[in-house]
């Protein structure tokens, strides 16, 4: 495998990756199918924005957002079943059950920890020691501008956290289990060690909850764009969409078995952040995972971060403390 040069990197030298939008297959079928899979994504995004913009105050609240989120995911699961992108990513009962287990852990244990030491606690602390009058300029901005700022700021934080996970070993230990997934399905975003779910959830987006409608509008971007990162459906996403937003194609490259390809497309919603920082690779991959596609069991996913962390710590600090005893030549730290 030769790979394709993208900037200074060679993508696809270790595992197959299609590079370039023009090389990616399109949705096949009649005109109705083509129209549906071309306009579904923008229609849903604009419909959600319109809903949150005009919904009466009695409806525009977090519980409605949760309900819409569940309904939207059920709709996408239906699309996965009817029109899978790859047969090799088809959702089985076992995969669905396993994915939902991690979703459940996220909604219960991780949320609980979050309220004590995560962004829940941070937001409360900040809100209690903040001079809100100084923030009046923000709340006076048009709602959509506020929503865009919240979404971009939150995604900017996630981009660097995610990039950090791929570049700093202790953070990688938390993120690695997520990269053992071998297929993309609607709930695969939740698959991973709880430590990672906690870390990736850290963000200051929720800090802006003093403008509920703007926060809900920002959530619409996350739901109607971010959800497509992990999904087994092919869309003919419009050119402007794939320029601005992260897509299944981008994220499949990120999950590819090719090491260089996996170090790209870090953002959650706005792939334009990757474009700005030179980490965007337009393309797609079908063969996903680590170690040649070895599946990771639930038990290993839950323990990997700690067991590997212990091994790494022992290797690093154990060797250092034994320094004078060993006969190996001392080398400077990297």
């Amino acid at each position, binding site marked *: 495998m030769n790979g394709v040069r993208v900037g200074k990197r060679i993508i696809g030298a270790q595992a197959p990756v299609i590079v370039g939008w023009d090389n990616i297959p399109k949705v096949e079928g009649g005109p109705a199918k083509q129209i549906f899979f071309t306009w579904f994504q923008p229609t849903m995004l604009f419909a959600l924005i319109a809903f949150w913009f005009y919904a009466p105050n009695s409806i525009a609240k977090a519980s409605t957002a949760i309900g819409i989120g569940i309904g939207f995911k059920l709709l996408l699961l239906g699309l996965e079943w009817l029109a899978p992108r790859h047969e090799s990513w088809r959702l*089985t009962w*076992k995969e669905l059950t396993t994915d939902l287990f991690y979703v459940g852990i996220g909604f219960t244990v991780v949320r609980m920890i979050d309220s004590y030491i995560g962004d829940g606690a941070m937001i409360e602390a900040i809100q209690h020691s903040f001079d*809100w009058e100084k923030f009046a300029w923000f709340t006076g901005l048009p709602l959509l501008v506020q929503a865009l700022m919240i979404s971009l700021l939150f995604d900017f934080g996630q981009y660097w956290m995610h990039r950090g996970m791929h570049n700093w070993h202790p953070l990688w230990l938390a993120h690695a289990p997520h990269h053992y997934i071998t297929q993309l399905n609607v709930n695969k975003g939740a698959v991973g060690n709880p430590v990672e779910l906690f870390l990736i959830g850290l963000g200051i987006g929720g800090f802006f909850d003093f403008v509920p409608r703007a926060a809900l509008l920002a959530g619409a971007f996350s739901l109607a764009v971010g959800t497509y990162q992990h999904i087994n459906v092919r869309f003919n996403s419009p050119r402007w969409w794939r320029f601005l937003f992260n897509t299944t194609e981008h994220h499949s490259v990120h999950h590819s078995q090719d090491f260089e390809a996996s170090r790209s497309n870090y953002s959650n919603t706005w792939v334009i952040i990757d474009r700005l920082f030179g980490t965007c690779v337009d393309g797609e991959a079908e063969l996903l995972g680590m170690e040649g596609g070895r599946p990771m069991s639930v038990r290993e996913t839950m323990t990997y971060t700690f067991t590997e962390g212990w091994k790494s710590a022992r290797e690093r600090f154990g060797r250092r403390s034994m320094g004078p005893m060993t006969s190996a030549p001392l080398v400077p730290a990297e």
Partner: protein
Amino acid sequence: MTGAASAADRDSAFDATSPRASLGYSVYRRFVDGIWHVEGSLALAPGDSANDAFERLDPLFQQTGTTHDRAGDTLTFRKQGQPAQDKMAVFDGGVLRIEPGAAGLVLRYRLASRALLFCFLAPLLFLAFAQATIVLGKFEQARTAAKGKKPEVKKPPVVLNPIDKALGAPEPDPPKKKKKADEDDKKPSPTPAYVFAGMFAALYAVGRVLEDRRIKVLFRRRLLGA
């Protein structure tokens, strides 16, 4: 014979001295073993021998992560790290045996699935999370009462931007004094844990029936081409 396959054979064999036997094996098998084991039987096509049957089923056991062993009329298999798209991915091991039946040879199988067991136990785990949430909530309530109420965050009234007004967005509600109900809303709720407990109970019921039928259909297709 591979080590893994022989271990599966031992696991599946019925030991009359085991605690299962004292329970009354049929009761055990129906109500406890049945939680994570799928078993069934299928008549072979007339004229087919055990060899023919196992040859037709052979591709199912040539998958990544699958080891198998055949001894006479019995095939034992074990799966470890099976890919998601393996048609038998839900099973981790089992025994297939060809036996004479009333109208010819019959395939009898007994397959074990840790995924089914995991799904069966998951509701208990989420119910435990719900109870832990309730206990933590009570602890938090006592702690807040001891510490006294936090001063309320004073937020300036939000004024709608003229552009939003022109577009017809509803005016935001004026800031109101926090009620007790609002405070209660911020407390950790056991509801998500209860919802997931229910969801896994439903998933188990579906999976137990679905995977039983799927494996039967798979074997039938392989053996009879139907």
